[in-house]
């Protein structure tokens, strides 16, 4: 095993550790709005991992989907759900 191979394997191990920790945090976060932010970080971590695993194709789609589309969709859904909840509570208070 040559030196560069060893370095790239340490890099992979470090990125994998980052991904595992971020995924654990993301799965255990209760508030969906915060979870969306952690998922964006997980997307970034996965992008790094896929890049060091020599899969730029997958990294590219993970970058667009994981850091932008999925968190954005979750945030928009939470916003819609919260907007109706907040207004319902306000309405009850004023009655």
């Amino acid at each position, binding site marked *: 095993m040559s030196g560069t191979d060893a370095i790239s394997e340490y890099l992979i191990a470090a990125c994998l550790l980052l991904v595992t920790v971020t995924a654990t945090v993301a799965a255990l976060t209760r508030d969906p709005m915060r979870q969306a932010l952690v998922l964006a970080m997980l997307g970034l971590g996965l992008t790094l991992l896929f890049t060091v695993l020599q899969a730029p194709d997958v990294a590219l789609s993970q970058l667009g989907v994981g850091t*932008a*589309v999925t968190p954005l*969709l979750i945030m*928009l859904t939470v916003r819609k759900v919260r907007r109706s909840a907040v207004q319902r509570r306000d309405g009850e208070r004023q009655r």
Partner: protein
Amino acid sequence: MSRVLRVRLFWAAAAVFAVAFAAACTGLPRFGTLSHPYGARAIAAAFHQRTANTVSSVNFDQRAFDTLGEESILFAAVLGGLVLLRRARDERLGGVRRGRVLPATRLFGSVLLPITLLTGVYIVAHGQLSPGGGFQGGVILATGLHLAYVAADYGVLKAIRPLAVFDVADAVGAGAFVGLGLVGLAVGAAYLQNVLPLGTFGQLSSGGLVPVINAAVGLEVGSGVVVLLAGFLDQAVEINSPDEQDNRTGR
């Protein structure tokens, strides 16, 4: 099922999974193994089809029929999402508050918007040569378009995003993939067989059917993500559901 029972069932299933998965992992070839029989055969086949990006060759040539299936899942998910997100009869459109945008953000957005769209087109077009293709390029095109929302406001985004056009483009992209498969049948080969001229290895025109299918998939993914995001944005920003309206009139 009660909550306690559900969590207990999970722990039992998780224990079984953990043991079985760990046992399976010890039987796998070790990490970084030098022997990849499927990979070696796929690479040889990609050379035969003169496609420099072997991943694209696998996706859009060697297992194109499988990708057609995945692409149909995507199309069905977009269609189902749109049906669920459309404005119901008891919902009304509210006015959108105009946001204030910092001049620096506006400048940044208007510079980046064309660059991002150009990058997206480049990535779709070079799918047979370098990392990229219809799936990645489509996502980049769709998210890039939403820089208009960040840099300006919702009205501007709606102006540069005629949804009727994107609805049709989504269907055209999906239909084009199915239609391209028929080319093979027309010349007496198999469905989705790569029968177009293969070109020179490493050139933009190489790969035969691969760049054409890439363009169809790019069109479908790009417009599909755009109409999905539009549905969610409308729900979150513009549409007032009945319970929200009751409160408004009660005030």
